[in-house]
């Protein structure tokens, strides 16, 4: 058996991948749902176009970061054509690692900016 790949191998994550993983962090969702959520979360700045979205989903499944979920919502809300996706353990780890990386980056930028500000003041 192959060893499961380390989350670090996926970093830095492609923006599309990050957005999809983030959308699945709290709950299982179907593709259209992910699309909507990303759109709302970014105030309409990031739109995952359908073909890109499903291409990304396929790639994420192949890499083992997400999987199809067997659970379905209540029958009256369910659309039989739609598949639901959820994060795998690896996917969760990768998301955490990428978030950490971004946070570190932001901290770095802030520190630099603070320094520049202080220099300007002095």
């Amino acid at each position, binding site marked *: 058996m192959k060893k499961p790949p380390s989350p670090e191998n996926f970093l830095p994550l492609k923006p599309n991948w990050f957005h999809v993983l983030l959308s699945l962090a709290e709950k299982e969702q179907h*593709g259209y749902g992910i699309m909507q959520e990303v759109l709302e979360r970014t105030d309409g700045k990031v739109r995952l176009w359908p073909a890109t979205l499903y291409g990304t989903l396929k790639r994420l499944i192949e890499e083992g970061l997400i999987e199809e979920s067997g659970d379905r919502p209540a029958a009256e809300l369910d659309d039989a054509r739609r598949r639901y996706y959820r994060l795998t353990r690896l996917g969760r780890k990768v998301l955490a690692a990428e978030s950490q990386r971004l946070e570190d980056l932001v901290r770095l930028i802030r520190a630099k900016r603070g320094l520049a500000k202080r220099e300007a003041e002095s």
Partner: protein
Amino acid sequence: MNGTGDAANRRVAITLRIYRALAHAFPQEFRNVYGDELVQAAEDSVDAVWQRHGMSGIVRLLADLAIQVPAEHLAELRHDIRYGLRMLARSPGFTAVALISLSLGISIAACAYSEMNGLLRDLPGVPKPGELVALQTPSSYPAYKRYRELNELFTSTFAYIAPVPFGVSLGKQTERTWGHLVTPSYFATLGVRPWLGRFFDAAEERPGQAPVAVVSYRFWEEHLGSDPSIIGKTIRINGYPCTIVGVGRKEFLGASPTLFAADLWLPVSVDARVAPELEGDALERRDLTMFQVVGRLRPGVTEAGAQAELNAVAQRMAETYGEPDRNQKGPRIALLRAGKVLPLRKQDAPFYREFLLVLGGLLLTIACANVANMMLARAGDRRKEIAVRLAIGASRARLIRQLLTESMLLAVGAAIAAFPICLWLMHLLSQLRMPLPIPVTFDLTPDWRALVFTFGVAALTGVAFGLAPALQATRTDLVSALKEGGNVRLRKHRWLSLRNVLVLCQMAASLMLLMMTGYMGLGIQSTLGVQQGFDPRNLYLISLDPVRDGYSAARAERFFEKLLERVKTLPGITAACLTDTLPVSFDGNAGVRFSGVGGQPNASPDGGGFLHVSEARKHIVGQGYFETAGIRILAGRAFERQDEKNGAMAIVVSQEAVRQIWKGEDPVGRRIEIGNGEATGGWGAWPGTIDHRVSGVAKESRTFEVVGVARDVSEDLVASKKHPAVYFPLHPADYAQPSLRGVTLMVRATAGVDAIGEVRRQIAAIDSAIAPFNARSMSEHIAQYMSALQGASWTYGFMGVFGLVLASVGLAGVTAYSVAKRGHEIGIRMALGAQKRDVLALVMKEGAMLVAAGTVIGLMFAWAGIRAVSSAFFTVASVKSSDPVLLVGAPLLLAGLALVACYVPARRSTRIDPAATLRME
């Protein structure tokens, strides 16, 4: 308001229709999983997109799809390749055999292509080579002047003498360098530009100019140290200073780079002392036909039209000047395509193209059949894997593509290995020196075209050997394949299965190949000429051409006299002579024609009064030739000093000439009319027979007297019936204008003496400025003479054996597969009491049937092939296609090997354990 709403709806509807259509282009697997959702997502969001982004949003929605479709296909291909590589790595034996078979097959096909391409290639660096035409036979300069006035045919024309040897002195060394004597329009008509300096201009056509020369890039690099300031400097050519005015471009080696590659160009107006070819007002004489004429056709003028017009002009000239052949019927002028590196007649080109490609193609077919067969056997093993993938929803097309990807991987891998092999083989072939005195060079180095061809062929073969197995493998009965180990097929055993047909083809093709190559190879081997009639042991040759070292005719004569005297007195040298022609050579076999015998009056050609016309080989030899070479004089005497005087008319004839011309009567003392004829037989076309002087001697006949009869000398490349030969004395005047191989000093030494070294020392002692060339022993000379044919016969042998091995491997594979497949059946038979012998017979029978049928088909094709080949190759015409060695030997060899190949895996069938079989049941 409502109207705009409708319009928007319509736009949305059209967008969705396009979207659905585009979504269909996704790979099937993707479509199966995501297709519906994708389309639905688009349907759900299209209104929002339209409202938010308008038209640009719609465009982006569609563009997103258009980008993702190829991306998905690429991803699938990448996946297939990875999977294919994994599968190939899993069976390294199969992969290795397949790669080797294919790379050999492809490399040989690529070689055949390169050879064809190398021979049929356009002149490098020459624009619009298709417009260039050359006269097949050389003309005189006055005739050229007439042709060049045909402005309605040609935009421009040029004439040149080739090949011309020049002695170029660089420091102390004199280098014999080949070049052309050209009209100034030579370079302009070809359309080539100089690398440095300039080419000749019209002023250089006037005689009495200071001698100028153009050198090739190669010469500039190798002998002039790539000196960028070389223009205007002088070098000594044939002993006279010449100013270098230009350097050609790298790829340019003259108008005929294959037959007469040139490194030096001098204008025809140059002084005859610099170029002895131009001696005696050569530019004014109608009988000196040594100029190659090339013209660039005007756009719209056809080759046939030009040929007709030229013929008319030539005919008028022949009548006007009363040339001896003025009543000759038929066309006088045939045109060659001069834009090619090897000028060919239009109708000859297909032969070069097709013969090589047929051989290469045959080998490739065998290799493909072989690999296809192995793939089929493998596909049998992979039935279960394939069935599983089919069962989980992969389409058949998808699986076929997967299997084809694997075969393409093999083919491309093989091509990557094949191209360097081809490069190497062609490099070896290009190195092969032809046994000719002139610089015949074949540049057969594969170029980008060959590379494209190699990969094109690889792609084709990939499909050729992959498609059938893929089709068959995916035509699987899912239930039975999944239920069981995957190998039991309850279908009736078909004799004429695809695999068997493939083996049949393979057997037939290899037999055809073996017989054709055997025919050529054996034919060459068995007909390699046996040199008899002279003694090649301890015989040494060294060539000299003092005129190219700056000597005048008189000085050359004195030099040779002195040299011969000195050499003869050397200890260890038993005999020595000067000679123009040698026993055993391509060259020097120009013919002479007898137009009257025994002093009978020469009947006029148109009177139809010819009594007898026969042709003989012409040899020009010095005093002492027969003694030195060891050729016995059977009657009369050898040449003596008095025969070398001008006006003397002594000749020596060979035994065979006596037999043919005098019907065995003693000819000594008889007189004979001899005219210069065209070179005899097939050799007429060989460049080695070029002799600028032939036409200069006389077209009219002269009377000679036979003084002696010499023993026959077999000196041919291939054994053939004896040729009559006539020996003429070498006149001192010939020293000043020898043939292209110079004057050869032939010495016989006692064993163990370094004759060449001794002679070299003597030459240096007389004048160190004289540069001897082509020093070799007679056995080296013969070996070199034979090398091309030996090489050819080896090549054919190699190809034949290669085909043989491939066919055997193929048959072994099929039998092994058949044994594996029928293991179950064989086990039951053995359980029921069948003997090992019966089982072996059962398995072998199938193989034997295939071998027999393949042999019959192969024989039929081979016979047709050989007939085609033998009509094209006069060299091996002495081997009959019904030669028993070939007709019985080749099929026996193949069948024997095939049966062994069949037996080895068949023996495995006897080791099947019936008990185990029954337990499985």
